[in-house]
């Protein structure tokens, strides 16, 4: 029998003390221990709302009679809809939905008032951007009540008989882009952005800190190099890695989840390259800020958390309060989600995605500039 050393409280206690001392020295980890619950509380407690209200709605008013106005004000006064603009042509309505500027377009047809008064149940067309079914579901459900309720105010006196009918109007809802409300259509393309955010930031996040930890940085700095050469040299190889992930997810989206691919795949690949580069730039900048690899991983996590929660991937973007939307607008994932969903589900072309793409480019440039400035050419 092998003789075992008996358990010693003193040795156990030595380890406990050592861990506390090391914890106190590692400020960033300590900050994370405090910071993560605070951030989570803020995000889940205040920012996230699965039942978005006051969704931007445009109205195409072909009948400028009293009842058309009534419907408009009914929408304005409702919880779920915010009237943002009046539009005048079908093409304009199409564009506003495709670019994601409005969630709904309500069309009041010509002769609406006349048909209503004749009791002919005129049609009201509501087109919804249903790429994210959870963002529009409750609003659509409330539509009938909102519109009928508004009309009922006007249908008084001799018109009261109209209000008494179950439905004075014929409400037609077109859930555009995802008519069956299949959530995979929304989630699987979005996942492409989430996966890229997580892996790309992490990969380059370790790039500089690893050189520093292994001592190879000293060697690299003693050679005649410029910061941009080092940073770009570390970014480019991983764009290819990112493309492998994109290919994997696109294949799965097509063959496993049968996600519609309405738009141009080359355009999506172009947008993906910009998005990948932005995340790699973010990672490499973390890498210049972090003292070691652990800190780089922690920073990645700190970036990933809001990206996941505030980008509109998990929860409807429009359900968040203003401050959270502002943060969300900064994150490249927010814009990439709009691009990828726009291209695949809405069939968006370059025109519609250009604005989103530009914002990702801007993010990448700002972040890379910080990285180049922070990259130290000396060991000081």
């Amino acid at each position: 029998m092998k003789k075992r050393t008996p358990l010693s409280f003193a040795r156990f206690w030595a380890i406990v003390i050592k861990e506390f001392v090391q914890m106190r020295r590692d400020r960033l980890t300590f900050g994370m221990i405090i910071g993560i619950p605070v951030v989570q509380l803020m995000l889940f407690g205040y920012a996230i709302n699965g039942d978005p209200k006051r969704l931007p709605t445009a109205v195409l008013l072909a009948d400028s009679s009293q009842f058309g106005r009534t419907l408009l004000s009914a929408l304005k006064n409702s919880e779920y809809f915010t009237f943002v603009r009046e539009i005048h042509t079908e093409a304009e309505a199409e564009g506003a939905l495709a670019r994601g500027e409005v969630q709904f377009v309500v069309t009041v047809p010509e002769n609406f008032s006349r048909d209503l008064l004749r009791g002919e149940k005129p049609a009201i067309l509501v087109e919804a951007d249903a790429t994210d079914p959870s963002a529009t579901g409750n609003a659509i459900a409330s539509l009938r009540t909102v519109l009928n309720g508004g009309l009922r105010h006007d249908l008084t006196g001799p018109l009261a008989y109209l209000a008494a009918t179950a439905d004075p109007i014929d409400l037609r809802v077109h859930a555009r882009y995802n008519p069956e409300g299949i959530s995979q259509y929304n989630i699987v393309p979005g996942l492409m952005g989430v996966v890229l955010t997580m892996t790309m930031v992490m990969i380059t996040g370790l790039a500089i800190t690893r050189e520093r930890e292994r001592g190879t940085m000293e060697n690299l700095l003693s050679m005649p190099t410029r910061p941009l050469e080092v940073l770009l040299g570390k970014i480019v190889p991983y764009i290819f890695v990112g493309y492998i992930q994109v290919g994997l997810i696109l294949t799965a989206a097509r063959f496993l989840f049968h996600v519609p691919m309405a738009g141009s795949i080359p355009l999506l690949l172009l947008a993906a390259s910009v998005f990948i580069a932005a995340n790699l730039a973010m990672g490499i900048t973390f890498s210049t800020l972090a003292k070691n690899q652990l800190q780089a991983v922690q920073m990645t996590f700190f970036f990933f958390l809001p990206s996941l929660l505030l980008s509109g991937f998990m929860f409807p973007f429009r359900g968040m309060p203003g401050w959270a939307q502002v943060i969300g607008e900064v994150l490249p994932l927010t814009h990439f989600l709009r691009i990828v969903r726009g291209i695949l589900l809405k069939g968006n072309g370059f025109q519609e995605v250009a604005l989103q793409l530009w914002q990702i480019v801007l993010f990448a440039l700002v972040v890379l500039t910080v990285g180049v400035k922070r990259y130290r050419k000396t060991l000081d």
Partner: protein
Amino acid sequence: MTDSFAIDVRGMTKRFGEHTVVNGIDLQVRRGEVYGFLGPNGSGKTTFIRMLCGLLAADAGEGTCLGFDVINESEAIKRQVGYMTQRFSFYEDLSIAENLDFVARMYGIPNRRDAVRESIERLGLAGRQKQLAGELSGGWKQRLALAACLIHQPKLLLLDEPTAGVDPKARRDFWEQIHDLAGQGLTFLITTHYMDEAERCDRLAYLSYGNLLTNGTAAEVIAGAGLTTWLVNGPDLQEIASRLRSTPGVQQAVAFGTRLHVSGTDADSLEQAIAPFRAEPCIWQQINPGLEDVFIHLMGRSKDNFSL
């Protein structure tokens, strides 16, 4: 004419916060010279070398390195200097050949493939070029590091403790190679803790607490210290040593294996001090002090002068 000097700097100073790590060092190293840089750990040797090759920004100082301004022209200096770091700093997950190829590309060497192949052959690494650097033993890592530092044909090599952790045979081979290269006109600045290596240098400098205490050839350094040394052989040397250390006139009593070196700067008072001990059954013999005696002396003296 600065041209005969590979390194010619004055007043090089580096501070980290309140702490002055290198304190106004002047150094001149001639072209083709093997210059030894000695001093205890933390004396500022590495910091000084890093300032020379632009890895650290000097807080003060001026001069030239290979004819380029040491403060403003570090990019040009980097192109002509090979720097071998104290810790192995090539990529452990690249093979020998891949590491060399990387370095060759970084310096934009023409005929890169040939340069890499020649470098591998010259260093006798031919059979192992596909081996990962991380799998190499200390001696082979050191050979690889030297090969990589030489690939861009630098004029000056800065070697920071190149032989730390390397076995005696490999150390001897390494120094032979250094003298070969110096014969071809390369200049070396080498830090070391080994006395035998110090003796192989053309000239030496000794640093302590960021100050340059002495420099010159080994003989000059020894003579400059003005030390008188007695060699003691016999029983109970430990006990004699501890008694000697508290005797005025004796500045140091250091055990060298089974013998004792007793030294002092004033020959007469040293002789008086040791007189009572000579009655004991030991053999006393006056010798020429060696470099190690001098360095231990310098270290002890500098503590009095500079430490707080």
